[in-house]
């Protein structure tokens, strides 16, 4: 086996805060090397160093046995390295084809038919079923993720870095990704893979390197260790085994949606969520779940149908009016719809509480509300004054969750609640959701992670192509049943033409 990449004694700090301490990492041709660690452990930072986005303070890199200095992403690309970024790096206005080939177009004059023809095989390879002519801004975030993957594949790189490529994919696409990864490794490509999902690690990884708090903990052969051992390496202690919640007693109907629809996106959606109940919208990529959730919250103004809260019809749902009625909403696209990137953590967390009059703007007022949340959610670094942009993705998610916990709400709409969140924190968040439900909060969520759906939900509503196609009770739900409803495989051959 040839060594593709070797990172030695890497140190990196940001304005005095040590983020990577003496980390080492190697990558062989044809292997999948997983990088594991809690949120904020330094995984993305290490990967960005390998991709020339950060210069290490000290330490050496070599590619293919030759020492290199990477000053920019283009240096890294010249070395045959490609990267799928944790935060999507696509150009919304350009088409799929343009994005896939960006920086790699060849000659100056563009021919769209040729570009599309060039791109189509890569789309097929990753199983993305959209026209290469579609502007990326029209795609769901999951489809965008697949575009990113297609782009990395199209680069014909020797080394592909994947920073949480599955964080917004559903089972179906993840399977596609597995296939792609295996095809690539078979051709001798080395893949660095970051994920918080152990099943993916188990399915793909040859070796695993674990970071904790920026420290190199060790590298092991995946087949030689158990999941529990990995978790212990990651968090430095044993995690208590997870159990699902006891059967909850749902209360009165909190949310009642009737005949919700919008041309081109979804139609005729009716559902109820009771106090103290967790209801999940499951389905494939592009099934319309996000749109339904947004329509209920009034985030997009032009949906047909009625929304009732506690028996009261909401005339024109808008985020402001829903918030005042005790509804919370966590969007799917954290970067564009969740955080205010240049504001501090505390400000990001207090946005809603201020409007509800729960807190003033004085530091002391905020601290009283912010600090408990940061503690409870285990946000790291535990500094309310850090700019949120500087937090790791998982920690940003926790801050947004904290926003609604601090403000308090009686109905919480969550789109992909644990996107990019590590095992330990995920357990915390599950416990939190359970806890909220127990306190009588109604929760309607969208999740593409089937284990999560099964772990959290009292009821599961499955969507396909913009319509509700089935309802499963916790007792008789299983991954297979959800999937077959979602794909239409088990239908009694119902109506097909939807949208």
């Amino acid at each position: 086996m040839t060594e593709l990449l070797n990172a030695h004694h890497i140190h990196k700090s940001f304005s005095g805060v040590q983020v990577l301490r003496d980390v080492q990492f190697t990558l062989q041709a044809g292997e999948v090397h997983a990088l594991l660690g809690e949120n904020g452990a330094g995984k993305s930072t290490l990967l960005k160093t390998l991709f020339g986005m950060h210069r290490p303070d000290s330490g050496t890199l070599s590619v293919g046995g030759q020492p290199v200095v990477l000053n920019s992403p283009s240096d890294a690309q010249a070395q045959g390295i490609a990267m799928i970024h944790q935060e999507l790096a696509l150009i919304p206005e350009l088409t799929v084809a343009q994005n896939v080939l960006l920086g790699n177009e060849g000659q100056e004059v563009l021919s769209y038919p040729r570009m599309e023809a060039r791109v189509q095989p890569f789309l097929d390879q990753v199983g993305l079923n959209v026209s290469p002519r579609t502007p990326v801004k029209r795609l769901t975030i999951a489809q965008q993720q697949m575009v990113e993957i297609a782009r990395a594949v199209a680069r014909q790189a020797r080394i592909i870095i994947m920073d949480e490529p599955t964080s917004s994919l559903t089972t179906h696409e993840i399977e596609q990704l597995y296939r792609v990864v295996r095809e690539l490794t078979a051709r001798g490509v080395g893949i660095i893979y970051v994920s918080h999902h152990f099943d993916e690690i188990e399915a793909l990884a040859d070796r695993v390197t674990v970071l904790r708090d920026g420290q190199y903990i060790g590298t092991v052969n995946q087949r030689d260790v158990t999941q529990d051992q990995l978790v212990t390496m990651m968090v430095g202690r044993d995690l208590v085994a997870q159990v699902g919640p006891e059967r909850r007693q749902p209360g009165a109907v909190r949310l009642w949606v009737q005949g919700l629809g919008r041309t081109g996106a979804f139609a005729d959606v009716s559902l109820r969520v009771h106090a103290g109940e967790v209801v999940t919208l499951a389905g494939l990529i592009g099934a319309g779940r996000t749109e339904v959730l947004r329509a209920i919250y009034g985030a997009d103004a032009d949906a047909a149908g009625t929304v009732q809260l506690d028996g009261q019809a909401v005339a024109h749902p808008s985020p402001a009016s829903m918030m005042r009625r005790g509804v919370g909403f966590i969007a799917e696209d954290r970067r564009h719809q969740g955080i205010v990137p240049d504001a501090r953590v505390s400000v990001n967390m207090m946005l809603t509480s201020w409007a509800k009059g729960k807190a003033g703007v004085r530091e002391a007022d905020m601290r009283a509300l912010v600090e408990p949340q940061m503690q409870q959610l285990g946000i790291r670094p535990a500094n309310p004054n850090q700019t949120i942009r500087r937090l790791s993705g998982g920690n940003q998610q926790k801050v947004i969750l904290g926003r609604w916990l601090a403000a308090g709400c009686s109905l919480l709409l969550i789109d992909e609640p644990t996107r990019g969140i590590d095992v330990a924190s995920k357990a915390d968040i599950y416990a939190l959701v359970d806890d909220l439900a127990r306190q009588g909060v109604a929760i309607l969520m969208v999740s593409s992670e089937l284990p999560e759906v099964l772990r959290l939900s009292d009821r599961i509503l499955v969507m396909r192509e913009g319509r509700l196609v089935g309802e499963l009770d916790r007792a008789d739900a299983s991954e297979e049943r959800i999937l077959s409803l979602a794909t239409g495989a088990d239908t009694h051959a119902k109506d097909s033409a939807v949208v």
Partner: protein
Amino acid sequence: MQKTQLSSKSMNRAAVIERLREAGILAILVLGAVVFSATVPSFFSVDNAINGIGLSAAINTIVAIGLTYVIMTGGIDLSVGSTAALSAVIGADLMQRGLPVLLAVLVALAVGAVAGLVNGLLVTRVQLAPFIVTLGTMTFYRGLALSYTNGQPILSLPDVYKNALGGTIAGLPIPLLAALLLVGAFTLLLRYTKTGQYVLAIGGNAEAVRLSGINVGRYITLTYVISGVLAAFAALVLIAQLGAAEPILGSGWELSAIAASVVGGTSLSGGKGNVVGALLGALLLSMLQNVLTLLGVQAFYQLLATGAIIIGAMVIDRYTRGR
């Protein structure tokens, strides 16, 4: 425990970096003042500081505060000069017709508020681009001001008004005091109120704020109203100094105010703003003008020098702040 220590340290560092921006401009300002005091005859005097630099800086500062708020949300207000003219001629006309001064002042401020409100509603309700909205109203309000007075200046303002706003307190001219007070008030508003925090957050990511259940449109509209009222106030201060109001007053105010704001550290893409910086920026620009005049630099070379110094100051600022 180490964590906590670490955080409070890094918090201080963050705060320090924020301050550095102001400090950079302040340093340039102080450095400039020292150098000029030593080299430029009659630069260093109370009279020059007050009349040569202070008044124009004061007017510009007052306008720039409002623009800073608008810019922080990611908007722009080109109509400030015309709004100022419109408020000024209406206020002055009412005074001349014998309306009690205080009432006339309130009406003038209300005119500014309405002008700002119209801008704000066009931006938030009709969702037009702020640039094009205020470009349109810049022309429109100017037309209103001119047709209201038929193009004539209004010359005789009541003495009580001129004395009230034109006087001094403890040796400081009232315009300067007013500007300083407003800088203080709007700094506090920005840092210590919900409104201020929302204005900043909206500039950072309006969609995220909207989805947090905040009525984003209302806050954006508010910034345009603030901008309109402050433009009207600046005009009221100015006409008290001039003793007269004319409909062509205020042309070019938008550029000077934007320049003061941006030199002072406000980012035109929103989300970042600094009211004290606007004051410092206005002072820097006025000082520059003042020195060039004292040195007898001719108009064409003044242009060269002004351009070069604006860019020079920004470059220095850039490198003192570090990367």
